[in-house]
């Protein structure tokens, strides 16, 4: 869930009444006193967040920035200034580029497939009408499965020689790939796991589809628009804000993919895992908590932050031009 939350903010920002709510209009008399009491109470109510923000967000960010410019000695708890060397390391360490490339490739593969599959399933359930609720429940079950359990199951299912998936393919005379060993098939394997649990995205699409006014389809049908035309001219524009939201959330999540890669490939510290499975978040984690190169890990984190910001920004720029908001003329 956590990575999904990140982008929620942006998508929501546009729609909330932050600004409106922020401008109080109050009757003049006794204003100063009442206002002060209310304001103090307000600050008290938000104080847990304020304290948490100062320590775990603002404080931690500054600390992280400082660490990224130093070599941290865990034994003495001392950060020795190191100038730009950690950032230079990002360029000089070839594995950073490898990890970045893997992650980028994964995101480009996973996000479109997840979107397409989720939208397809949502359309299917939306078309069924009655009975869709039961299917929605069944489709949602993988989403409830803990990722470790999913990984453990797929770890065996995807075994190239004895796994059930390749045994199943053999029935049809197909020799399946070495999913978790062959560098070409590592990312598709993880995408497969993601697709199995795609129902969160599906539920969001389904809610959006249900909100498309039925009349639009009827009018379009009368005008002779076929299913394909109706999909591209009505459905897609009408659900574009859900699409926009899902793309952003899934992209940010894809950039931070960790659990699956860690569980399938980097559990034990033997270095036998193929480099194709080295994702950015995994390498960052290893640098931080296996090698204890805190400075280098912090620098990696800031690079990731910048990349995610840029990608999200570009998506928002494009998105805002393509998204149709109702009541927005």
């Amino acid at each position, binding site marked *: 869930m956590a*990575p999904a939350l990140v*982008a929620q*903010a942006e998508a929501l*920002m546009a*729609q*909330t009444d932050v600004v409106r709510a*922020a401008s109080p209009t109050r009757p003049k008399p006794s204003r100063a006193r009442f206002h002060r009491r209310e*304001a*103090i*109470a*307000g600050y008290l109510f938000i104080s*847990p*967040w304020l*304290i948490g*923000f100062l*320590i775990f*967000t603002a404080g*931690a960010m500054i*600390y*992280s920035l400082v660490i990224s410019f130093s070599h941290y000695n865990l034994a003495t*708890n001392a950060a020795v200034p190191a100038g730009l060397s950690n950032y230079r390391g990002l360029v000089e360490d070839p594995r950073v580029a490898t990890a970045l490339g893997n992650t980028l490739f994964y995101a480009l593969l996973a996000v479109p497939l997840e979107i397409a599959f989720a939208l397809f399933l949502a*359309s*299917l359930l*939306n078309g069924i*009408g009655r009975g869709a609720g039961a299917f929605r*429940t*069944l489709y*949602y*079950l*993988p989403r*409830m*499965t*803990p990722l*470790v359990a999913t*990984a*453990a*199951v797929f*770890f*065996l299912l995807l075994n190239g020689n*004895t*796994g059930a998936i390749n045994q199943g393919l053999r029935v049809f005379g197909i020799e399946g790939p070495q999913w978790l060993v062959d560098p070409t098939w590592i990312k598709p394997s993880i995408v497969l796991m993601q697709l199995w649990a795609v129902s*969160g995205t599906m*539920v969001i699409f389904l*809610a959006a589809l*249900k909100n498309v006014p*039925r009349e639009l389809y009827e009018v379009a049908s009368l005008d002779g628009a076929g299913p394909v035309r109706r*999909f591209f001219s009505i459905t897609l524009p009408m659900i574009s804000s859900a699409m926009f939201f899902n793309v952003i959330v899934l992209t940010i999540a894809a950039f*931070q993919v*960790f659990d699956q890669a860690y569980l399938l490939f980097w*559990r*034990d510290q*033997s270095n036998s895992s193929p480099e194709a499975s080295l994702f950015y978040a995994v390498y960052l*984690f290893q640098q931080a*908590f296996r090698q204890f190169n*805190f400075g280098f890990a*912090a620098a*990696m984190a800031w690079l*990731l*932050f910048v990349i*995610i910001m840029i990608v999200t920004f570009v998506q928002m720029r494009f998105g805002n031009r393509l998204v149709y908001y109702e009541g927005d003329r």
Partner: protein
Amino acid sequence: MSAVGTAGPRPGPAVIVAPRPEDRPPDGGPHGPRHRVGRIVLWVLSVGFALMFLYPFAWLLAASLKGRGKVFDNSLWPGTFQWSNYVEVWRELPLLHWVGTSFAIAVIASVAVALSSSIVAFGFAYFRFPGRGLLFGLVLATMMLPGAVTMVPIYLIWKNVGLLGTWVPLFGANLFGSAFYIFLQRQFFLGLPRELFEAARIDGASYWKMFWKVAMPLSIPSFIIVLLFEFQASWNNLQQALIYLNAGSVEGFTAPLGIAYAMTKYSPTAGGQGDYQYVMVASLIVTIPMLVLFAFGQRYFIEGVATTGRKG
């Protein structure tokens, strides 16, 4: 199963086909037969996907009952049912400890974050104070920050206050509210009529009473959504367990960390014997609480996702 915040109960239009039966003219209408074929295709596809989604569960159940050499095979019916797996697993792995630890942490983490987020959300929803808009913008902005940026400093904070190796780092930050849940609860509070609070105010209720006696009881549905989401998130949390508990004893692991450990323990490349049936039993046992949670809270999960995702 009508939605809390989504559209009406009326199923929307089909992208591919089909008005619902009652919409169709009695004698089939101009497109009657075509629609019937379409409906059949839709049903066949839906059932097909349902089987696809359920296959890993059925396979997991079967695998948990198989013997060592058979775990990998694709039959959904174990030749011989090795019920002993379910007995041995408790001896093989400290599974009870793992599940207990995960459960305790998940309860603390979800209650902590739900309460603190509600308090903060009420502050943002009800009171007017200078800088409110800016601060709430900041709340939303924190959701954009990748966890990796603060991962190392937060570790160092817990280290410096001497709480490494305890459970505290796994729920500590939850005591201070979480942006997404603050947002969710605030939206709910904003939907409550302000007159309710003014009335309580005239009756002499304190601000705290207004929150605790008026706002909270009314926001139970969204409170439950927060509890369920966070319980699931905590139950799944692998990375933090890796950071904070991996160095300790195996008994002290959480369930995700434990299963990761078991996957390695039985792996032939790490010197194991390939007794993956135990990993499968453990995976199943760790999955069941989530399925139970879903059985009771399905409405909240699905509507939570649909509404927060769509319009917040």
